[in-house]
């Protein structure tokens, strides 16, 4: 999309998608990280089915199994491939369940943030003027504070609970989406055909939907990917600090926090493996997002 291009971004979205898909397939870093992300998502979704045990079913958990190193057999015969934690829960199962929680929170909050951000961004770009100036000022102010701080404050206000965490993360993220969408939509707006469309008195909704929106999609896809990785990290940090998800539904961050106490006594696996999982997940999503950015918009791939 060159600056001098005043035509509409016509062309079927399907063709664009297949072009991207092909590009992803031909680049090893993109396809490997993409597959990995898919794998993780599948594991998380199927966690209840594939985890060796259910670590949160109190009936099956026994403290006698506590602090077993990786590879040891538990009381009921299953092998704890990654060891057990202080209360006797199988670390591998806990990781799968934790991954599930982490991803649910991240994806939910990203979806909400995206919807809100999209709406605000499109509105700002379309209506322009004072509405635009006001909305962007709000966005700027919020973005001048680090995400973690905003999240902390919000959670201080909202209290505990997984839904509150999702809301807090959504509030943290919407601003970035809004700003990106607005920027992309503004580019579209300046093109000549936009004036033409308004002259024809097409309904606002139609103009926004068919014209402003498609242009924003490519930047949105990249942003959503990278933001998801970012929110996984923030949620993990919050849970680690104790202000995130409740202990009944731990995420990877909570698991790492649980393992903290056992470091000095040598049971490293309780904190180590959840961390590796977290690292792998976030890294894969980041790499994939980076690759997407290169594919979709080669000019900005610096």
């Amino acid at each position, binding site marked *: 999309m060159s600056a001098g291009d005043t035509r509409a971004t016509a062309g079927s979205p399907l063709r664009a998608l297949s072009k991207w898909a092909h590009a992803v397939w031909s680049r090893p870093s993109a396809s490997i990280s993409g597959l990995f992300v898919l794998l993780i998502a599948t594991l998380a979704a199927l966690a209840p089915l594939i985890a060796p045990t259910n670590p949160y079913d109190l009936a099956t958990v026994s403290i006698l199994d506590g602090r077993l190193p990786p590879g040891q057999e538990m009381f009921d015969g299953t092998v704890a491939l990654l060891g057990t934690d202080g209360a006797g829960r199988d670390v591998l199962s806990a990781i799968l369940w934790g991954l599930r929680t982490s991803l649910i929170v991240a994806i939910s909050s990203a979806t909400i943030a995206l919807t809100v951000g999209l709406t605000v961004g499109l509105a700002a770009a379309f209506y322009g003027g004072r509405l635009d100036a006001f909305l962007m000022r709000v966005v700027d102010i919020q973005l001048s504070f680090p995400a*973690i701080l905003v999240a902390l404050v919000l959670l201080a206000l909202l209290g505990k609970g997984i839904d509150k965490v999702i809301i807090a993360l959504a509030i943290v993220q919407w601003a970035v989406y809004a700003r990106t969408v607005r920027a992309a939509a503004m580019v579209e707006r300046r093109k000549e055909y936009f004036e033409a469309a308004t002259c024809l008195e097409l309904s606002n909704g139609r103009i926004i939907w068919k014209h402003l929106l498609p242009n924003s999609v490519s930047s949105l896809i990249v942003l959503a990917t990278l933001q998801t990785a970012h929110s996984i990290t923030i949620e993990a*940090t919050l849970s*680690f600090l104790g202000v995130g998800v409740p202990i009944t539904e731990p995420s990877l961050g909570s698991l790492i926090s649980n393992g903290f106490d056992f470091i000095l006594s040598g049971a490293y696996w309780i904190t180590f493996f959840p961390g590796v999982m*977290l690292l792998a997940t976030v890294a894969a999503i980041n790499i994939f997002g980076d690759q997407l950015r290169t594919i979709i918009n080669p000019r900005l791939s610096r």
Partner: protein
Amino acid sequence: MFAFILRRSIQSVVVLFVMSLLVFCMINLVGDPVDMLVNPESLPDEIERVRRDFGLDQPVYIQYWQFLKGALSGDLGKSYVFGRPALALMAERFPATLELAFCALIIAVIIGLPLGIYAGLRPDGFATRIIMGMSVLGISIPTFWLGLMMIILFSVILGWLPVSGRGEIGVFLGVESSIFTMDGLKHLIMPATNLALFKIAMVMRLARAGTSEVMAQDFIRFARAKGLPRKRIIKSHLLPNILIPIVTVIGIEFGTLIAFATVTESIFSWPGLGKLVIDAIINLDRPVVVAYLLFVVALFLALNLIVDIIYAALDPRVRLQGDDT
């Protein structure tokens, strides 16, 4: 230039005021802190007395007015948990956080800047690919987990560094800091490096992008056409031009470092602001949370202002605006 500073200062004050209002309103809509202060089984009289003592029986706008009056004279309320003035608590803990954030910043720049510039100068090099790969890793690693791993490695397994806490404080040129003692350094190095990690990756990417961009510009090519040696080009033409945007970003990121310190301080039991505020959030210690928020807002505004001034000072195009022929 002076007009510029004045205008920005006034803007900052206004924002600060608005934020204080916002913060106060938000905090007041949530829960009743009295429940935290007294035993739920106390008699209603008792609860009423506590409420009165803490001024929580007044209407909201009076509470805010009291709050504002107090704030302007330096009194941001007393911590429910410690019973001491919130502001005093913050002042006590702030130097430790400042020290940590400052060291982290220095580490991030010392490591990130040269690596990023190198990557920008040799975009197709093998070393560059490794460097960029590590930077992706850098932003993906959960800082807190890495902190734990560092503790395991350096303290538990190798026993080289202490597990937690701040070391001895030394004095140099009238400044108190634990940088000046060996013991202090030993305590400082892990948390500072841990905090710096994310920033190293960021500085690296910034430096690389900036370098690529500047090197592609005409005046670099002109400098080459003049026959200047490469070192000179890097020193006099590349560096000054990338440093300006980098300095401004780093300056703003200093604020983020202070915010992120909350995590590092929790892991390493570093006696700074971060730990204070996390505990305050968990314990619903409102005055401390409010004080922290206002403090951070003020800090960010001040940082933004300082950064704008530095930018204006560094870029001769902005500085000498009145002199165009």
